[in-house]
């Protein structure tokens, strides 16, 4: 069983998005995703200041096994990136919802978050992929 915290929203492509107290949205990949990928060895992040549209490619995560695109869950401007993943990409495996975050967005419209999957709906996506 993978960990699916209820304080995040999810995309069927396995990114999570969490509205922080400062109004920014943190983005990463789910526990299910890191487990499917296996050992993460490289992460390519967007540029700080870059504008992204929901569904756009905003980075790449590579495990030993395969490369996988990261899509922006909502539209906005990249206001922070997790530089530490450059030297410690294994954080994505160890703490996918914490130290393994990828980037933070200043969302154009917070309401977009409401359209994403909640934990329960995302659980169904994972179950469907497992069977």
């Amino acid at each position, binding site marked *: 069983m993978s960990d699916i915290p209820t304080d995040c929203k999810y995309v069927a492509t396995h990114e999570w998005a969490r509205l922080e107290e400062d109004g920014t949205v943190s983005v990463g990949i789910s526990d299910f995703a890191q*487990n*499917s990928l*296996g*050992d993460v*060895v*490289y992460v*390519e992040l967007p540029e700080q200041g870059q504008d992204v549209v929901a569904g756009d490619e905003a980075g*790449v995560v*590579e495990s*030993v*096994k395969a*490369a996988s695109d990261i899509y922006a869950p909502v539209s906005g401007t990249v206001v922070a990136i997790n530089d530490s993943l*450059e030297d410690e990409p294994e954080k994505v*495996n160890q703490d996918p919802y914490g130290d393994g975050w990828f980037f933070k967005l200043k969302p154009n419209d917070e309401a977009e978050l409401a359209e994403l999957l909640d934990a329960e709906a995302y659980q169904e996506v994972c179950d469907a*992929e*497992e*069977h």
Partner: protein
Amino acid sequence: MADHSSALKTPLFDEHVAAAGKLVDFAGWMLPVNYGSQIEEHQSVRTAVGMFDVSHMTIIDVHGGDAEAFLRRLVANDVAKLQEWGALYGALLNETGGVIDDLIVYFLPDRYRCVVNASTRQKVLSWFSKHSLPAMSFAEQDQAMIAVQGPQALATVQELWPGCVPDSLNPFSACRFGDWLIGRTGYTGEDGVEIMLPVNDAAAVWQTLRAAGVQPCGLGARDTLRLEAGLNLYGQDLDENTSPLASNIGWTVAWQPPERAFIGRQAIEPQRGNCPTKLTGLVMRDKGILRHGQDVTTSAGDGIITSGTYSPTLECSIALARVPKEATGPCQVEIRGKLKAARIVNPPFVRNGKVLVDEA
């Protein structure tokens, strides 16, 4: 996840489930890609001992007076070089010199034993039928196979099963232990053995090895270990359209005696010494991962990556690439539209725990 319902289970399937192996469909078999961390599994084999379920491999025994003549015609390496209990690595070529499969042939007292890939099983069996000679027969064997690999592999199996493998057993030779056949062979670049054994014994042997602390390893670690060791993977580094001379296994083609007419000889003999391309190694110190199919630009022309991965031992990406034979030194690889700097090196990258390419 893929639908596994039609995939075959090896005799060790329950052991993989018990060890929380993450199962995938590999050439029609359900096998673990890892049991948690493939990097940790990789390190176990480089520094201690690990084991792999390789029961999906196809084992074909060839019997009879024409068995030698048959294999001398089908295998580009020459089985006539083998002493009893010896083994050799070689390629099955088609008429145009492409590689149908790579295999290991053991010369046993009453037969030859061929171990070929799982993905090529049907076409190899068809090829054998097509070229079969009157005084011979061949039959696929229903056996399990466990590879125990790493610097402590031999000591581990010797302690668990006293007398199973003599210290003097040379690499690429085999011995019998009860109804096991044990070869000092592998696909990791480390010392070790591959044990072929009755299906019904497999689970108990696996459990005994596990209880002794041997790390179960999945397909993921198998791939990074073989790539660091510069060993080819059929379907990526070897295929039916590519000569063995363009795949860094020219050393397995036995040109002597000149009159031995192995299949494919006529096609590849003109390339002898002047094959326009070579399969060589790449190291990339930049961040990013080299992958199969990426384009390579060298000073001598363009090439392509046949296998690429992250090397846990070098802690950077490595690859095998087919490039013009004159290519050396720095090169560039296109990754998602960006050119990245890499360097051409001679494989293997790692053997017996030691890095063999300079750290520049």
